[in-house]
Every structure is written in structure tokens, then in C-alpha cells.
């Protein structure tokens, strides 16, 4: 039968392959007989096109590289095999060396005989044989390599930032200040995110509003920033350098141009609604509202489901009192299309729902509060003007228990550490004590106060006389066992330092709830074609060396969307993402690895098997010609469609069928001699 290996396999004549075997000091030579391997390659792979085989102490050293470059020039090598360490380490090195010698870098292939041979095997004979097999595989493969050119794409200087929390704000300002346009899309009516809800920030205790509001305002007024609040991204097409993003601008029912933000409408609106977002369910807002007086933009939205007018068709109080007549009951959602070159996702986090741990009583016992509720309670602009009171709205607590790690570091809920809870709890301990003089207990597993000035803050809180009980709280109950427990909340805990069970009666319990990914993070990830961890946090390109980029070119992540972190870290990551984007913009264009799939149109029968397989939407189907096409800039080179095409009409550069099939043959030309191994 027609075998495309045979057909397309280049005739032996035209290959001039150089094989370079590295000793890596003794790392390889200690186990693999590199000299024998080199000789073997020179002799028995001659008929496969090998014209020269050398071994050298350190191939990656400049003399080593010179060796290769020299041979390319003098012997006119047109293929190079380097048998050394993992390609992840030095592929770039050797490809560059080849390029320097005028050989297309993609005609160089690395064979790993260190990580995959010398370091994992002890039997010298077997290891040497395996090294030979690996090289023979490499040689067969490289014969089918073709020169490749990186794909160059232009970069649209505009940037989309999703999420108007502190991370998104930071990125937006950095890029806008650098003179490039930014679209900032925020789901809520105002930017500011969680930070806007806080009162003080640890460890310095400076007022959150004081440091955030100016930034919010400069975003609101910046000429280079188009602010799209009360909006959500619906669809992302295109690829790095040239994304086309569909945004739904939800109807505010208010004409933003005419509205002056005077706030009379909110005053006059008769409908009181519990504010579950900004006030964390502790306060009320009207049916027409801005989350807070500092909102940016300072333009209200009408909460349609709660508005009397939409319910009954009457009221219109807001409309009546609105001087500039900015109320638009008939306003519709708008669909906008933005063209941007890069995207930064800063979609933030959600608070762990403490009701999921019923034995802590949140939602059942009135005086159990969550951390976010306390942020609002302590906030001077909050529902109680900063008075820390119990659920009845007036009584001041005399004893307060703060429970750490609620929903974090707990295999029933989330295994991970939410990072901020320790410091946040210490902050509460300080604030509550300061405002109420109450005796505060902290119930912790470990105190994690790493980073600048954090532990000092811990010391300070200790000195203020806060009690620290090390142990996981079993339950919070209102069932007394004796008279001095009556009417209190009793915290049942094992004090692991004393080594006994304790029951500590308090007036108020604060649950330091953990951070969770946004409920819809997985859908968001799908929309933007990036990946999510099992928990739902966005996955960065590399956990250490590239925590900013994602596997999808042109999409960056910042803030808690990538994982729990505090304000300084979010700001840093926001700025870093901005820097990366600016770098791209400055280059005006970028080169993409040419490992890509492409369709041979005359072979494509338009069966559409491949159409649903690409998570990066690189595959499009042309109904008119009944053929499929792959957008090389969108393609990330995974090769799934290549493997799936029943007609063999899709080819993948860098990892073509010919290359892999040849490598298989090469690897299997050598068979293991039993005695060789047992020897």
C-alpha cells in the first residue's frame, strides 16, 4: 500500500547529517560509552546520511558549538543531531549555533541521552545501546526535517483588561501612562473590586479608600482608558496581536452622558434592597444605586429585578426627580466589539461561602460574621459607620473569637492556603480591640506572616494582649453547658499547645473565610482559551519562571485570578503583566514558534471531524468551498487535529507524521540484546 514514509523519504544522497555526542563531563560519559556511540553512528548510520560523528566534553560550551558550526561550513552539513541533555535545556543553544553557521535552526534535532539515559540507568552496556537507539531515532527523524520560518504577527497597541480590582487598575494605569490605549471591562457598576470594601490594609493599617480612590479616579479620567463597567466579555476571536473581543455592555437604564452623578435618584428611590455585593449582605442599597459614594464611574444603575417600575409599571421616582432627565427605562444592552493586541485577566476571587461549614453556625447563629462582613463593619463608610456591633445593630461585643483557615487548608473544602487570612485576622484582632476594647481570641493552625513587616505586625498584635489558641475549631454553638456560657457563643476547640479541649465563650465570632476562584472561572478560561487548575485558578505558563503569561500567546493573568494573594502581590503582578504587554507593543510585531498545523486543501473533503477539536478556535470551516482552514497564528501546535484528520489532510510542522514515523523506525532498528543487559 502507499506508504508516505517511503514516498516522501528523501533519497540517502541529499542528507549530510552531523552527529554530536556530548560527554557532559562525566554526567553522560560516566554511564554511556560516548566514544563507542560516536564511532557506531559514524559507521553504521553512514547509509542513513551521517557524514560525521564527534564526541566532545561539553557540547554546549562555545568550543563545542564552534565544532558544529565549523562542520556545517566545511562539510556542508544540512542536518544536525546533538545527543546531550534535554532539549528543554539546550535546544535553543544548538539551534542558534546552527543558525550562526547559516543552517536553518529547525534542521537541528536534540537527542536526550542524559536525563533519559545516563542519569536514569546504571547498566553501562544497556545505557550505551539505548543511546544508540535514541540517536538512530533522531537521525531518521531529522532526515524528514524541513527548514521552518517563525510566524510574524503584528501587535495591535490597544489592550483589554478584564476586572477592575486593584490588579486590573494597576495594569490599566501602567499601560495608559505609557501612552497606549486600554479597555477596562468590569462586571460591577464600579471599579475598585474587593479592596474598595476594606477599611484598613495590613500591615501598615493605612486606609484602603485613601490609597485606592485616587487610583480609581485617575482610571476614570484617564484619556487612554476606555472604562466599561456593568459590562462582561462574551466572546474572544483572533489571536495574539489582533484579538477581536465581543463585550456586552449591560443596560444601566441611565444615560451616562447626561447623568451628573448627583445621587438624588438614590435618595428618592423608595425601594430598599439588601446589598449582597458591596455591603456583603450587611447593609442596604436602593433599586437605583452606585455601590459606594466613591464609585467610578459615579453613575448609578437600575437593579431591574428589584425596581418597582419594572415590577408594577408605576413609581418612576428616580425619573421624576432627575434634573438632567438621564433615566432611560427603555435602554437596551449594547454589544461592542473591541480590537486589541493583548489581554490581561484580573478577574479576582470570591469569598468562601461560610454556610458550607454549618457547625461554625454562619447563617444560623446571628453573631457569627464573615471576614468581609467585618471589613464592612469596621469601615467608617460602612453600614455602622465603623462601629463594631453585633447583629442587633447596637450591642458592642466584649469578647470576640476569630477563626482562621475557614474553608482553607481543610480537605473537606479547599486544600490550599488562602494566604491572606492570617494577616487579615491579625488586622481584625487589632481593629476590633482598638474600636471596642474587646478581648480577642485568634484560633489558628499556623500563623503565616511572611513578607515585609508582616511578622512585626503579628508581634504588635500579640503585645496588644490578643489571645492565640493553636488548634482547629470543632464547632461554634449557642448551647450552654453552664451558667457563664449562657447567652454566649461557645467555641469548642482543641488547644494543641496545652493539649486539651477548651470551650471559650464569646459574644461574636469572626470567620476568616478563605479565597475561592470565581464561580464562572472555568467558563471564563474557556472563553479566553486558557487553562484552569482543578480548583479553578487560572494556570500560569510556568509556576516560577513565568507566573504572568499563560499558555495562550497574548493573554496574561494578574491578581487573585491566578491564586490567592494580598494587595502588594496583586499590584506587583498587575504591573508585571503591564510591563510584558508594553514590551510586546513596543516590538510592534512578534515571532511565533513555527510548530503549527495546516490543511492541504485539495485533500480536505470537509468532513468536519476536526472542527470541534481546537480549544483555541484556530479551525474555521468554509461552507462555500467545503474545506477547513487553520489559522496559523491562533494554532498553538498541539497537533490534535493532525492526529484526528481521517483523510491525512492536516500536516503539522515540526512534528509531522513522516518525522514521528521515521523516529519510531529509527528507535526500533536497534534491539536489546538480553545478555547485553544481564551482563
Amino acid at each position, binding site marked *: *500500500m*502507499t*506508504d*508516505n*514514509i517511503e*514516498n516522501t523519504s528523501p533519497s540517502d544522497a541529499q542528507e549530510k547529517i552531523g552527529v554530536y555526542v556530548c560527554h557532559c563531563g562525566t554526567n553522560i560519559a560516566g554511564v554511556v560509552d560516548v566514544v563507542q556511540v560516536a564511532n557506531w553512528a559514524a559507521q553504521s548510520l553512514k547509509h542513513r546520511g551521517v557524514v560525521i560523528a564527534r564526541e566532545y566534553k561539553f557540547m554546549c560550551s562555545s568550543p563545542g558549538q564552534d565544532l558544529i558550526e565549523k562542520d556545517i561550513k566545511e562539510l556542508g552539513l544540512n542536518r544536525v543531531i546533538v545527543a546531550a541533555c534535554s532539549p528543554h535545556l539546550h535546544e535553543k543553544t544548538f539551534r542558534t549555533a546552527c543558525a550562526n553557521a547559516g543552517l536553518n535552526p529547525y534542521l537541528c534535532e536534540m537527542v536526550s541521552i542524559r536525563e533519559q539515559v545516563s542519569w536514569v540507568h546504571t547498566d553501562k552496556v544497556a545505557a550505551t545501546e539505548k543511546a544508540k537507539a535514541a540517536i538512530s531515532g533522531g537521525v531518521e527523524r531529522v532526515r524528514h526535517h524541513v527548514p521552518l520560518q517563525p510566524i510574524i504577527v503584528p501587535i495591535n497597541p490597544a489592550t483589554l483588561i478584564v476586572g477592575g480590582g486593584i490588579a486590573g487598575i494597576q495594569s490599566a494605569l501602567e499601560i495608559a501612562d505609557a501612552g497606549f490605549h486600554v479597555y477596562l471591562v468590569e462586571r460591577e457598576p464600579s471599579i475598585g473590586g474587593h479592596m474598595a470594601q476594606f477599611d484598613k490594609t495590613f500591615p501598615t493599617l493605612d486606609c484602603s479608600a485613601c490609597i485606592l480612590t485616587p487610583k480609581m479616579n485617575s482610571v476614570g479620567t484617564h484619556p487612554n482608558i476606555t472604562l466599561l463597567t456593568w459590562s462582561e466579555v462574551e466572546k474572544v476571536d483572533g489571536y495574539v496581536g489582533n484579538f477581536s473581543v465581543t463585550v456586552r455592555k449591560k443596560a444601566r437604564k441611565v444615560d451616562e452622558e447626561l447623568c451628573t452623578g448627583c445621587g438624588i435618584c438614590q435618595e428618592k428611590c423608595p425601594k430598599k434592597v439588601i446589598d449582597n455585593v458591596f455591603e456583603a449582605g450587611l447593609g442596604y442599597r436602593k433599586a437605583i444605586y452606585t455601590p459606594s459614594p466613591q464609585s467610578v464611574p459615579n453613575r448609578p444603575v437600575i437593579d431591574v429585578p428589584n425596581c418597582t417600575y419594572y415590577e408594577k409599571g408605576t413609581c418612576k421616582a428616580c425619573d421624576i426627580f432627575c434634573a438632567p432627565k438621564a433615566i432611560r427605562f427603555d435602554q437596551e444592552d449594547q454589544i461592542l466589539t473591541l480590537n486589541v493586541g493583548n489581554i490581561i485577566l484580573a478577574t479576582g476571587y470570591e469569598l468562601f461561602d461560610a454556610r458550607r461549614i454549618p457547625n461554625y453556625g454562619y447563617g444560623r447563629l446571628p453573631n457569627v460574621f464573615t471576614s468581609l462582613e467585618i471589613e464592612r463593619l469596621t469601615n467608617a463608610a460602612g453600614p455602622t459607620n465603623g462601629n463594631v456591633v453585633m447583629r442587633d445593630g447596637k450591642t458592642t461585643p466584649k469578647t470576640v473569637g476569630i477563626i482562621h483557615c475557614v474553608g482553607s487548608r481543610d480537605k473537606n473544602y479547599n486544600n490550599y492556603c488562602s494566604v491572606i487570612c492570617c494577616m487579615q485576622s491579625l488586622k481584625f484582632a487589632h481593629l476590633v480591640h482598638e474600636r471596642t476594647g474587646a478581648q480577642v481570641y485568634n484560633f489558628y493552625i499556623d500563623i503565616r506572616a511572611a513578607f515585609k513587616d508582616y511578622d512585626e505586625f503579628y508581634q504588635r498584635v500579640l503585645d496588644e494582649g490578643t489571645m492565640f489558641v493553636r488548634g482547629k475549631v470543632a464547632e461554634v454553638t449557642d448551647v450552654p453547658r453552664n451558667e457563664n456560657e449562657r447567652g454566649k457563643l461557645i467555641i469548642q476547640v482543641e488547644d494543641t499547645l496545652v493539649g486539651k479541649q477548651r470551650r471559650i465563650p464569646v459574644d461574636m465570632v469572626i470567620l476568616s473565610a478563605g479565597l475561592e476562584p470565581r464561580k464562572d472561572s472555568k467558563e471564563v478560561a474557556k472563553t479566553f482559551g486558557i487553562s484552569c487548575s482543578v480548583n479553578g485558578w487560572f494556570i500560569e505558563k510556568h509556576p516560577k519562571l513565568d507566573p504572568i503569561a499563560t499558555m495562550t500567546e497574548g493573554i496574561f493573568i494578574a491578581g487573585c485570578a491566578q491564586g490567592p494573594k494580598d494587595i502588594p502581590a496583586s499590584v506587583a503582578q498587575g504591573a508585571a503583566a503591564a510591563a510584558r504587554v508594553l514590551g510586546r507593543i513596543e516590538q510592534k510585531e512578534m515571532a511565533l514558534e513555527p510548530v503549527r498545523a495546516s490543511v492541504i486543501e*485539495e*485533500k*480536505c*473533503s*470537509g*468532513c*468536519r*471531524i*476536526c*472542527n*470541534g*477539536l481546537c480549544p483555541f478556535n484556530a479551525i474555521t*470551516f468554509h461552507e462555500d468551498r*467545503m474545506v477547513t482552514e487553520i489559522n496559523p497564528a491562533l494554532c498553538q501546535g498541539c497537533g*490534535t487535529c493532525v*492526529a*484526528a*484528520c*481521517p*483523510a*491525512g*489532510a492536516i500536516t503539522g510542522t515540526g512534528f509531522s*507524521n513522516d518525522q514521528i*514515523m521515521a523516529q519510531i523506525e529509527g528507535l526500533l532498528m536497534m534491539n536489546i540484546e538480553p545478555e547485553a543487559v544481564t551482563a
Partner: protein
Amino acid sequence: MTAKPKFAMYWAASCGGCEIAVLNIHEKILDVDANFDVVFWPVAMDAKYKDVEAMEDGSILLTLFNGGIRNDENEHIAKLLRKKSKILVAFGSCANEGCIPGLANLSNSHEIVETAFNTISTDNPNKVYPMASYSMPEGEIHIPTILPVLKTLDQVVDVDYYMPGCPPESHQIEAVVDLVVKVLQGKAQLPPKGSVIGAGNSTVCDECQRARNVKTIKSFERIWGVAPDPALCLLEQGIPCNGPATRSGCNARCPTAGAQCIGCYGPAEGVVDYGARLVSAFASVIDAKEPEEIDAILDGLVDPTGQFYRFNLAGSLLRAAAPAWKAESTHEKEKA
């Protein structure tokens, strides 16, 4: 008369459909007669092997060889005709890729003989089995010995052109006849050696008129179990249609008639293993992520090996199942 180039056609392990197909080109057959001197065509005219053996090497211009190599006689004639012919064409699915006779490669030759001579469908009360040789007054007579593994033509001899189909469609045969005649008259060039003639380079879907969308398969159905939408791609309806992987050239006969393609035209241009393509393609569009769920869906694919290799088994990478190979190895030993 003698000036006319010589033509031969041979029937090895096959059903004879290919021969019918050639006759089925109607008056075009006259062109063949007009332009060729038919020297060897057992089905159509009497001829003896010794006559062929007597011919000069390369004296036959064109030989259409259909059928797979099932016994040593097939093998002998294949080699003989190779020697005598300038152009040897693997004609029809059997010679190309083994076809239905090739399915016997799933069992060993012993089982095959058993099935033929000792099953309920065979009226053989005295259990009479064929014998390789038998001596009678006139002397010892031999019958061909069956090979353990059916081979495709190009697994035993070098083949110039491949003409797929079970059988090749008559309009395709006509086209090829026209081409050859033109070549004889110096009006056309022969395609490069080794290429596939009388077929398209794409797949059946190319010629199929059914509408198709992005595919996600929740369950596989058997054609007789459902009433498929006549206008919609069968595979999308869960009917395992081999069209996407099968070489075009038949005008999508089966899908047009409402039956799924079973793949008689073999793999598309450049494909190494026909079945593997289908395994990959079908699995790719299954709509499930949990192993159990996937298995549940795959249970709907009865006999995947048969589904994917009905025509292509002998021509596939694995070529035959384990039992056949075992027989082969013992066979080799006997030879030695």
C-alpha cells in the same frame, strides 16, 4: 494484429466482481479489444500458464491483477506476470489491500479450512478435506497450498499502479482505459509509477451531498436500528460511516443510497494505516470525558477491528491478527 500491444488480466484470491466490473464498461470493452491483443485472461478465454511462461519477459504491456495472494499458486502467477509485464496494475481492493478475503487474516489457515469444510453450512458428511497432493493412476496431482497470511500484491511483487475499489467503479475503469489508449496514441503521459489511478485523492465526504456540522457523537447506532435523516451526515447521526477516511472516486454511492460507507476504496492519498485514521477520527469526536462514559459509547461500535479494517486488513500496518502470524512462524520453520 501482432502490432497490437498485449493485455492480460488475472484473478487471484477474489470474488470475480472485478472481472464483471471490467465487462460492465459496456461498449468501451471494444476499445480494449481494438487496442489490445488479449493474451491471458482465464475468466474470459482459455489459456495455459505454460503459454505465459513461454512469453518473453516484459512482452505484456498491461496486466490488470485482481485478488489477493492467498496460496502459492497466486504467488507464483503474481511473480510470473510481474516478469512478463511492463505495467502491472493492482486492480481492485483485493490486490490493493486484501479486501474481504484479507479478513481471513484474523484467523489461522487451519481455522479457515475448518470453516470452509466443517461447519453447519457445509454438506460434508464424510469430512472430506482437500489434500495438497494425491496420487492416482495418471500420476500425482497437486493443488495449491494455502498461505498462512493473505498478502496484497505489492507485498510479493513490485507494483506499478494501484486501482482501488470493490470493485472499481465502471466509470473509473472507462477513464483509465481512455487514458491508456491516449497514451498508446501518444496523446497523454502515464502518471508517475506507484500512483493510484481511477480514483480521487480526497475522501468520500468530498463527493457526498449530505449536510454536515461540527461533530459530537453521544452514541453509535447500527444502520438498521435507526431511521437516519436522509439529508444529514450519517456519522453525525451516530452511524459509523467510514466515508471521512475512504478514498473518493465512487461518487459516494453508499451514503447517497442511505447506507454508511464501509471503505472499499481504501485509504486516502498518503495515508499509512486506514483503520488507525478512523480510530483516531471517531474517538476524537466522541462527546465524553469520563472513561466509563467513553466505554459506554464505544460499546455501540460492535467489532471495531471489522469496522475499521473490513477491506484494509492485509494492507494495514499490523496486516494480520496474532493467530495468523503464529501459523506463519511455524510455516517458516517447516520451510526451513
